[in-house]
């Protein structure tokens, strides 16, 4: 169970990215986060694993307050939270397998990572994860030689390496064409269904939300404006979320 309580983030310049946001996510749920660009979706996801320090509020995960965790505890918490990014964020010059193995860094002893050594079972596991997303044959080529869809699958394999209990996906399909978008979303759905991993996924297209999400939260200028089932988003709700002048596409 993930509980967000009165979460507020004010950036150094005084921009209020999140304003008193509260909601709960039960274990195993596929939650879509929607809203305009700049509405605070990315900030919200990054506050959960504290890539961004929240200004105020609480994030309780299985009863433990993430915002109060020490660096040591944070390492333990982060390794259970996988993250998938819009721009994949792979290390381009490293091999695919190294990128995937990087998902294990939260577990292995830092001293060993200096000399680039991973335990054998981790390497086997990395190959299995790559097989699961269907690109095990690409394990030994450089990450920047892959196409966008393949890179995102490496990103998912990296998140899976963490044996996550939760995955934060920050617009995972915004840089991909519709066909690839569905294939990536299906992988996330599969992980959600089969492994029971909680997924928090920010999305732009409502048809994807309808198709994949169990529940939706919507942000507008940092405030929570909607919380409910995907089918409850009618025209009026839509205009609340996206503004008066918005029109539906797709």
């Amino acid at each position: 169970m993930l509980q967000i309580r009165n979460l507020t983030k004010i950036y150094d310049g005084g921009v209020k990215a999140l304003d008193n946001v509260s909601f709960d996510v039960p274990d195993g749920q596929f939650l879509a986060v929607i809203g305009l660009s700049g509405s605070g979706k990315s900030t919200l996801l990054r506050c959960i694993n504290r890539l961004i320090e929240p200004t105020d509020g609480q994030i309780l995960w299985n009863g433990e307050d993430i915002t109060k965790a020490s660096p040591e505890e944070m390492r333990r918490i982060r390794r259970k939270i996988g993250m998938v990014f819009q721009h994949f964020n792979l290390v381009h010059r490293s091999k695919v397998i190294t990128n995937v193995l990087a998902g294990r860094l939260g577990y292995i002893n830092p001293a060993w990572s200096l000399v680039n050594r991973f335990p054998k079972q981790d390497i086997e596991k990395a190959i299995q994860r790559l097989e699961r997303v269907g690109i095990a044959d690409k394990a030994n080529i450089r990450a920047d030689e892959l196409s966008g869809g393949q890179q995102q699958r490496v990103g998912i394999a990296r998140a899976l390496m963490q044996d996550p209990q939760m995955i934060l996906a920050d617009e995972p399909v915004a840089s991909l064409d519709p066909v690839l978008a569905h294939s990536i979303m299906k992988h996330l759905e599969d992980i959600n269904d089969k492994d029971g991993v909680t997924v928090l996924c920010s999305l732009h297209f409502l048809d994807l939300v309808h198709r994949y999400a169990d529940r939706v939260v919507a942000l507008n200028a940092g405030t929570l404006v909607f919380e409910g089932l995907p089918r409850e988003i009618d025209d009026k709700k839509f205009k609340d979320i996206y503004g008066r002048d918005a029109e539906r596409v797709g």
Partner: protein
Amino acid sequence: MAAMPSGLGERNMNDNKANKKASPWKSIQLGLAILAGLVIYAYGFQITKVDLEDLRSERRQESLARVMRALAKPEILAYDQQEEVINSPVYVTCPAGGAPIVEQPDKSGAFIVVTPTCANPGEVVQVEGFNFAPNTTGPLRFVPGSDPSNIVQLGRANIQTDASGHFVVDFTLPKRPSEDVQYIRATLRQNVGVPHLTKTAHDTWDKIIETVFLALLATTFGTFLAIPLSFIAARNLMKPVRSPLASIALSIVGWPIGIVLGYVVVRWVEGLSAPLAENIPVNLLSIVVIPVILWLGIRWALPQEETTKPGGFLQTARFAAMFLIILIGFYGLFQLANLSKNLGLIGANSLGSLSFLGNFFFQAGDIVSIITPALGGLAAGATISSFLGKIGQRSTEKLSAAGVKTFNIIFSTLAGATAFGLIGQLVKWLYLVTNPVYVLWGPILTGALLGLALALFTKAKDTLPTGMVIYYVTRTFLNGLRSIEALVMAIVFVIAVGIGPFAGVMALGLHTIVSLAKLYSEQVESIMAGPLEAIQATGANRLQTIVYAVIPQIIPPYISYTMYRWDINVRMSTIIGFVGGGGIGFLLQQNINLLNYRAASAQMFAIAIVVASMDYISSVLREKYV
């Protein structure tokens, strides 16, 4: 979104500017700017004394031509020369009895005839030579005094024999009147055999090799030390580093304690290894056995992956094992150094032309044994400091606010006193101040008060931007050192280690460290933030983030900058000899000072060839690997 309107506005303004007609005010402004430029350059001419008058003077042009001709003929190849020296008597001022009868020359070999055989000083006589080697050149000179073997020669005419070995030349007699017979001497030189390399060429070759290796060593050492420095001089890596006051204070206290402890312990280990130092079989055995022990020990004490936290007993055991492993490691390091020294000594005495390998091993061993205690001190300093820092961090997390405040006050005061006390001792050593009020009690009190003030004014659980402090200190240090030219550093090192290439290596090496660290750190600052974020999100700590997200991104620019620096170092090493730093510069300066321009020219050519080929090689490598 906020950026859009202002961006649009700017474009509109530019459009307006373009549409506006040029106003008179604009023209006046332009005119004034040109006038100001003119004044600046005029003053520049005055300051730099631009003056072509000298260039036009005949004397200057003559010397210039002479030097240019010498430079165009580098002293690289030379023939063995055969000289033919023939004297002929002459009287300067004719004796009272009219033209004297001179002895007939021996006409079987080469001979010269002077007509007339006497003349007044400043008058011209004609000199004719016969039977010389054909097509040779040489000087015709006047030998004062009555000794034909006198080496003093005056006046000069150049002679050139024709195909039959004959020449005729006019010679002006110098102002050396004498009643005795004097001589005119023809010296004709002929090249024999094939050309061979001159001594200058050999010296130049030796020194240019020295130059290239000087640059190589300086670049290598500089690069290795610049890499870690560049990470702590990179804003994006250091900005997130923040720690609570208690942690900082304890780390500061930990450094000196650790350094002293580490140094003492490592010296103790050195003492243990000393009795067996000369014994090569023992050396060999230890450097085979010790790595195995280390490998097994580290595998046990540092498990690769652990999902559950180990118990207290196991942790203590591991800690003890690590300590032992480190001691054994240092023992092994000393044995390795001794082995290297012993083998090196043997090699230096028995390898003949390869004895430089022996010397290398001896020197490498010596370097290891000198820096190991220092290394041990630093390692222990870092360990104890980070250990104490962690205790500080823990206490800040666990204690109540009031508890933390007390903790902060105690340790911050202590840390301030320690840091300032050490600075005081440095001042004592550097400026030879002996009054303990200035170098001991004063600084300690100041530091303690500052620490106390910091602790009082910091909120108990607040974190301080340690990273940014380290960043600014490092940057300032780098910028300061970088502004000192390598040539100036070389002067200091010449005093420290003596004249020679090693001083040059140290000077260039140090300059390489600081300038590369700056360039490297700018590269670190410009890496993509995405991968960094992704690696952090997996739970990686700072060290892992650097290894997996930063290093792969900076390899190409690092290689590129290292090559660039290598170029610069080769060029610098050619002149570092001017101040005694070794390399070809020493030779070049010497020859310039001796006005030996042909030799200097050989060295300049050598420099040009080396710099150009290094340029070429590095550009090829850069294309290939970057």
